[in-house]
């Protein structure tokens, strides 16, 4: 699907998203990258439990639901990555003493899961109409055994890779908001992956723009 032949043939799998597909949440979105798909729902701002109340900003809760069984350590780690990214982009101080809840339901995992979670989270927050200082997107890069960079890897490609990196890129200055890495790589490779992710993020931001334009248009 995304063979890297020679120097420059890095692709993103086909991706898509549907917004407002659930009636109960204030904002909801599904995000699909190849076979990987995630459903996200956002609630809020709403009343907050006294124990979780923060006096000068809203409390953001991120919940990741696996497909089988109960959430474990892996889900907690991913939750933290997503929460910290969302906290950095949401204007939480506009809603002090309230709660925002973001629920991410895994539908199918075929690689690049964390970046799919990030993208779904961003679209759901957009759909909920929550004030944000910037948009963000997630891009996963894998470095295979030959040192080639693969963007948006499938599960099989992830398995064979030497290193795996996920970056959250912000839309205003294309800066790295969060990074999560696995495996070993050189500084040079890291910089290359960041540069690739920044390039790839442009495609995703363009997609955000197109989908919002389509959503608020009067005709298809």
């Amino acid at each position, binding site marked *: 699907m995304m063979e890297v032949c020679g120097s420059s043939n890095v692709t993103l799998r086909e991706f898509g998203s549907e917004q407002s597909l659930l009636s109960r949440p204030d904002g909801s979105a599904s995000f699909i990258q190849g076979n990987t798909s995630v459903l996200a729902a956002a609630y809020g701002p709403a009343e907050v439990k006294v124990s979780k109340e923060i006096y000068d900003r809203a409390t953001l809760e991120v919940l990741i639901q696996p497909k089988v069984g109960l959430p474990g350590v892996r889900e907690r780690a991913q939750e933290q990555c997503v929460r910290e990214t969302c906290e950095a982009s949401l204007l939480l101080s506009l809603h002090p003493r309230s709660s925002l809840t973001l629920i991410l339901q895994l539908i*199918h995992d075929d690689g690049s899961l964390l970046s799919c979670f990030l993208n779904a989270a961003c679209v759901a927050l957009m759909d909920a109409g929550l004030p944000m200082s910037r948009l963000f997107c997630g891009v996963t890069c894998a470095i295979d055994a030959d040192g080639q960079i693969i963007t948006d890897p499938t599960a099989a490609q992830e398995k064979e890779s030497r290193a795996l990196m996920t970056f959250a890129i912000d839309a205003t200055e294309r800066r790295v908001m969060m990074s999560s890495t696995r495996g070993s790589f050189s500084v040079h490779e890291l910089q290359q992956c960041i540069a690739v992710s920044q390039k790839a993020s442009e495609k995703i931001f363009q997609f955000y723009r197109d989908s919002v334009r389509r959503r608020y248009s009067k005709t298809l």
Partner: protein
Amino acid sequence: MKDTPLSNCERDFLLKAIEEKKRLDGRQTYDYRKMKITFGTDFGCCFVDLGKTRVMAQVSGELVTPKENRPNEGIMFFNIELSPMASPAFEAGRQSELSVKLNRQLERCLRNSKCLDTESLCVVSGEKVWQIRVDVHMLNHDGNLMDAASIAAITALCHYRRPDVGIQGDDVTVYSPEERDPIPLSIYHMPISVSFSFFQQGTYLLVDPCEREERVMDGLLMIAMNKHREICSIQSSGGIMLLKEQVMRCSKIASVKVSEITELISKALENDKKARKAGGKCGFAESMPQERITALKMDETPVEMTDVTNRANDIVQKAEAPPQTVPSPLVPVPGVGQVGQGLHNTWGLEEEDEEEEDDEEEEENDNSCEEQEETKMEEEQHEKEESGGGDVVEISDSEEEEVVILHPEKPDNAPTNTGSSSYQRGAATSKKKQKK
């Protein structure tokens, strides 16, 4: 987060409408909402849309040891997850009354009706059986979760394929889907739950209540039935007294609804089978509606990376070089160990002891020039002194008796606070000496 309360006007309005045989969404009394069944990319994943209610079921299989009283029967496990996604009133990871009720009803509907041949799940009697786990996730709560969950669960069970297992002697091999085609479960019948809600103490009856209707209803009757018109489970809740005729009427309605739903499920399964056989892509991604204004899809897009290498080079060159040298470990106080810094182990272990031993031998030769020779840190000297004190401990098994004579007063000088470490040191050195 609390659920949005229902106001009194809304309540009165709903009840009045029901009295006039009208429903909020324009349905007739016995009508089901529009039902849609879709499948995920992998086997055993099923989505059910019942109006706005949306449920996902995922079946998974695992080899486990069977229960002792049933050594050759597979295990079925049901878990209904009331995810906060479905309604803000649901809390994650907490068993609410509703979730217990739904779980129990699903168990009664599917496990106790013996719709699945559990004996076919046995691999090695008393040792290995398949545990079939059904996880039902509520995605959107708009009433009648039970019917949606039961349809999703049974459809997912029909759709699931477990890996093939081969037995040679005592070896059990689980074949991957590439090696051997996975096997479907053997399902005897498909029990489907149908819910009836009662209003005004059982005067009015509605099929498939939506969320608003559920809030104002007096009682609920759930009948699980298969297409052979066999009742698998029946449960009445809410504390209303039902007449025999009412229950009979409900069961008649249920039999009609069940046969309709069963037909829909088999059609959906057949369509999916065809799609999979044709080799086309199927699953959630493909079921995304394209004609909607809220959905958008992008085809596979290449990422341009012509200047990526140059940019990375630029950044790496501009960045200051990382420090190549590893800072040498510093031991603040004798007896304080540091592991990890500079990848050096500063706990007193063999190599150090050997050094010290050498030092000791030197000491034996000429203990007067000790200070001049050693340019090491204070602490090491300390340690040396300690080990010198430790020598006394090891006299018993040491061949070199001269050591004792050299430092007869040392035991008194030895600091008491590091007594244990000096003892360990002594023990280590004594071992070394025995080797020699």
